[in-house]
């Protein structure tokens, strides 16, 4: 039973570490798209960059937060 738990925890940790890496990646791109607002000519273009950037930051940030919480919980259990 303990062995099963260890395997399950290891899988959860792996998934959380992968999600964390993907989240950082997407978050970075969201930030770059928001930064690109500075290069947009019109108000509509600026708002488009802002909304798209915020969506990416939301997805990436959400993944990072959730995975870090899981990693912390798993490490505390150990």
């Amino acid at each position: 039973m303990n062995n099963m738990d260890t395997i399950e925890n290891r899988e959860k940790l792996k998934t959380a570490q992968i999600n964390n890496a993907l989240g950082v990646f997407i978050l970075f791109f969201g930030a770059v798209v928001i930064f690109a607002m500075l290069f947009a000519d019109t108000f509509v273009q600026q708002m488009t960059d802002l909304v798209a950037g915020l969506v990416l930051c939301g997805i990436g940030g959400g993944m990072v937060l959730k995975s870090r919480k899981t990693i912390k919980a798993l490490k505390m259990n150990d």
Partner: protein
Amino acid sequence: MLAGIDYFIVIAYIVGILLLGYYFKRFVSSSEDYFLGGKSLPFWAIGMSIVVSDIGAMDFVGVSGQAYRYGISVGNFDWIGSVPAMLLAAFIFIPYFWKGGMYTIPEYLGKRYNSSVRTIASLTWIIFFAVDLGVLFWASAVLLNVLMGWPVWVSILITATVVGFYTYFGGITAVVMTDVVQLVIMFVGGLTLVFLALHAVGGWEELVDKISNMGPEYRQHFDLIQPSETKTPFPWTGILFGLTFVMANAYMIGNQAIVQRCLTAKNEWHAKASMIFGSALKMLIPILVLFPGLMAIIIHPGLEDGDRSLPMMIKSTLPPGLIGLMFSAFFAGLMSSVDSLLNSTATLFTKDIYEPYIKKGADDKHYLKVGKITTLVLLIIGILTSPISSKFPGIYVAIQTFLSYFQGPMFAILLLGIFWKRTTQWGGLSGLIIGIAFAIYLNTFKAQFFTIEDPFLYVSWWSFLVGFIVTVMVSFFTSPYSEDRLEGLVYKVTGGKNNNKQ
């Protein structure tokens, strides 16, 4: 040409993918990790990966181009041509492959029929993937040359280095997870493009009205079902029999690159759910790739090459930043197609050819090493053979068409193998060989049999039918395996022991 910020985004994407790939190296310590991601991946990542590997950059551009030329009927490939097949795969086929601990589809065929069927099926896929790799490298490089202005050889080397790096180190985990990033970027960029373009043309009703009044050649642009005598490549008869009944099922159930992803799932539930989730995402794909092609008819009328509609829409509609993001999605699409071929071919070679025929019973580290070396060798073959495809302009279409020919017979023996316990090993072997031979015959003499120029949908239907009939007929005259032998391989066959208990 792209603005500075867009170039920065594309370069950052390439560097980021390299780093991600290297990071995934830590999750690979056995051949199961390398080929099946340690059987630990979640359904949502696999579902996203299935969709992304299905819609590479070439299709991205091609579907928009076909929507520009023929209208929404091309959407059939992602709707009726995918969703029912994905659901069938999820509920019937994938559970058998996953529970059986398979690495490859030919491995299932080998267990269900015999080792000859396994070897023929595996070699057919390996040859197809290896040739396709060179063609894909060249086609990708040409696309990057047009979009980014990079020289063809630079494009080939960049694509090969990036894809080779993360596939070599990270195996299928890296392949699946880089696809997740791509899908997120593709959806955000694509939906923004559709929203802005729709706004520019004055809304959906205005779009329909304007295109319908552009002339007789645009009258059928909003007909999802085209008559059988249509001049487009999508007559309803071909869509129903060739695409829905055969090609879609063969692709979602019999294609190693697709099914291998489901086999990486952490349990049977996740394996099934990945296909169902993938089918839900698939229904949204035409919105991203088809609508821009339609809107380009109004915004960029009279394009000689419809395939230029999507790149032109991106450049004319999206703001700086998102243009870079969409081009990154293009680049990711190219990489996704190449990494799928690399990893799947390495799996097929290692598991179906090397392990049974070259070195049986070696330790797992050895097979992991073979898988990695095969990936490198394939990469070099792809780079070296890519210029050959430039000498044959129609080779990309020819290779894709070839896929539809052998998929029909292969699907026929998969279908009978799983649903009909009376199917015999000799039935399967004859059905596969005669079905493929018949497809080659039909293709060689296509002018005598078909009126449309590229009858690949009809060829796949007829080759499926011949493969099916031959398998059934030969099975009636040969001895089937016992129920014990078929346990876990055939639908609702639980073996003699269990039957006795009842």
